[in-house]
């Protein structure tokens, strides 16, 4: 327990000491903060219409102007962070944990099971995510849950493959062989000895996947296949902004900026975390 805590502290310190890591951490922290406290931070009800005040430019009252229904764009951006994380976090962490479990089973289980699971992963990976998402959304209709499930399904093989590789490299290491010789159960070996050695790599992968998922949700919403109106989402803002760009550029700014920031933030954060977690890279620093 003490070891885990000191390891975590070491990672956090490592991230904070790196300028890019610190920027990433601040951006990620801000997005998470906005998402958690959106209802208190947003100055207006993000779905309250005021047609008379539509398509207004930035002002003190509306820092990012208003949309075609007179809704405050800033409030919609703030609330949009909730949607972004509501999709990204369950999708990425869901995929990570399922992928971790399946990957460890594939890596530690019998050969036939490994082959079967690899076939399944390869089949799932062969679907281009966006095309798969479009097909599923077209069939079952757009919703937050659909987007989460699609992203999760297409991301599982990535995590599973990494987990399997790590498991394979660990299964014949001396400390695992010693555990087996002492009669430790499979669950103990996987859960207590292997998991801590695999989870770090997967966490880095997850951090770097989050902006991809956020961009995917924004992309689906941009195509009108993401969350349902009037739920605010960055992609929906971009979609409306693109259609109305000759009337006001602020919807595109409002929808685009958070996507860019989220991508940069999570990427900086993830890359720095990878450098800190990976001992080889850590030595190079």
């Amino acid at each position, binding site marked *: 327990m003490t070891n885990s805590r000191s390891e975590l502290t070491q990672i956090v310190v490592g991230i904070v000491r790196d300028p890019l890591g610190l920027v990433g951490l601040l951006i990620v922290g801000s997005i998470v903060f906005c998402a958690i406290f959106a209802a208190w931070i947003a100055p207006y009800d993000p779905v309250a*219409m005021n*047609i008379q005040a*539509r398509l207004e430019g930035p002002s003190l009252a509306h820092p990012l102007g208003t949309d*075609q*229904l*007179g809704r405050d764009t800033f409030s919609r951006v703030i609330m949009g962070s909730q949607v972004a994380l509501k999709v990204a976090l369950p999708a990425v962490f869901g995929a990570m944990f399922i992928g971790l479990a399946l990957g460890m089973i594939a890596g530690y289980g019998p050969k036939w099971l490994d082959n079967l699971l690899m076939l399944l992963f390869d089949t799932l990976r062969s679907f281009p995510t966006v095309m798969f998402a*479009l097909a599923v*959304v*077209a069939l079952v*209709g*757009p919703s937050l849950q659909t987007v989460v499930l699609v992203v999760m399904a297409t991301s599982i093989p990535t995590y599973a493959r990494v987990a399997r590789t790590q498991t394979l490299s660990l299964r014949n290491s001396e400390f695992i062989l010693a555990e087996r010789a002492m009669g430790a159960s499979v669950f103990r070996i996987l859960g207590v000895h292997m998991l801590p050695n695999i989870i770090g790599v997967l966490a880095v992968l997850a951090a770097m996947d989050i902006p991809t998922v956020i961009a995917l949700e924004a992309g689906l919403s941009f*195509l*009108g*296949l993401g969350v*349902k*109106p*009037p739920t605010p989402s960055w992609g929906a803002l971009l*979609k*409306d902004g693109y*259609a*109305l*760009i*000759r*009337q006001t550029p602020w919807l595109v700014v409002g929808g685009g900026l958070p996507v860019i920031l989220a991508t940069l933030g999570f990427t900086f954060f993830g890359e720095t975390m990878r450098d800190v977690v990976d001992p080889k890279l850590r030595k190079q620093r």
Partner: protein
Amino acid sequence: MKIEWTKTGINRRKFLKGATALGTAAAMPMGFAGSAFAAEDGVLRVRAYGDSDVMDPAFGKGVTDETVHAAIYNKLIQYKPGREWDWQLDAAAMIEQVDATHIKFALRDTIGFTNGFGAMTAEDVKFSFERLIDEEVASPIKGDVGPLSHVEVTGEREGTIVLNEPFAPLWNIALPYAAGNIVSKAAVEAAGGRIGTDPVAESGPYLRSSWDPKNKTTLTRNPDWKGDAPAWDTIEILPIDDENTAEIAFEAGELDFTRVSLGSVGRYRGGVPNGGQLQEYPSLYYVWLGMNLDHPKLQNQKLRQAIQHAIDVPTILEAAYFGAADPANGMIAPGLVGSRPEALVPAAANFEKAAALLAESGETNVTLTLDILNKTTYSTIAQIIQATLAQIGITVEINLLESGAFWASGDNENLQLVLNRFSMAPDPSYATSWFVTEQAGIWNWERFRNEEFDQLHTAAAQSTDAAARDEMYRRAQDLMEQSGAYRFITHEATPIIHTPRVSPALRPDGLPLLRYFGKS
């Protein structure tokens, strides 16, 4: 009169002229060269929203193909440019409805086909019309000629169009539109019975001299055209789907004519860049909220009427159409026979009445889905409907659908509310035809079934009495509205901008008639 019809092609002079222009342009800096092309005296550059790739009028895909067909082929009659629907003679020197089912015509003797296919004859007219109703040809615009029986050839250039029964729309949507294009019988037969992406023989004031797929269609003057000379030597049609892009191209001097978005009308009312002009035309499209009468949740007429009265059309027009469109009083737009001066349900919402109707219905905790096409305009309309229906206690969940899924909604029995938009030809029968009983579950998504409506649709199409038709179509729309299944919203609008050197020739709904475009 003997006419020598030459073949199309590039002669030495044309080649040298083109090569010189190309060389001059290439020698210029890019930006300057672009402007020089846009401002070239004899070249008109117009925007179309799609590419024109079908040169067989029997298989045209609508407005984009017809824009080119109308310039390179002739019809017996053409739409007359202006603000009111009317037609004028084209290939016909004379045309006359001799009785309810017979239309006599005589062709001008100055019209012929290119590529050596000779003068236009009544046989060509017969061939062009009869192939539309030929089962083997399977033309998708067969319905436009309704009960056409055959064309009787009575002379080299004279004939009679014979109908199985009276069909008034023939004059409005068949003869002057896509179905009315006359092709060369010899040329089409030589091509194997169907024209592909290249016109095999043209007869209009322009020839399609080149086609660069998805990039540009170029029309040049037909040197053998014996009618009034067209004003422009060359017309370049640029397919640009996005209106924002087209507006930017116009403002950069790359276009002479384009339709613009309704959102830009306010800005252009204050002045069009480069000395251009804005013209606002009404549109024939109709947008409405439909309710599926077969759905268990929408069986209560009072509930449907409550929904009708709770939808505030002026707010929708302000937010989604930027105040540049008027409320619709039905499917049939103003200016057409059958247009109603006012709807039964006023445009402005009446929340008190809506709430009272809802209370009368006895329905509580009503939750409905509203299916829409995933475009910003419809999403905006849907959110306003959602908000206004919420005011009387009806919860609406919006389903955004991509176009494939949306346009397959006809057989979706779970459809509840749907926001829809249909295109329209300038005859009311075109609108009512989609809402007859036999269309239920096909294009009649509301599953509106009304015997009187069906009878009115049939009778009005057969009547040649304009006043009687007008009365019948008004009544037909009353029946639709009384069913509670329809809330008519708008016909939208067609705003266009053009450079000062162009004098556009437009149909009353703002669609271009390129052959009549002039210079100013």
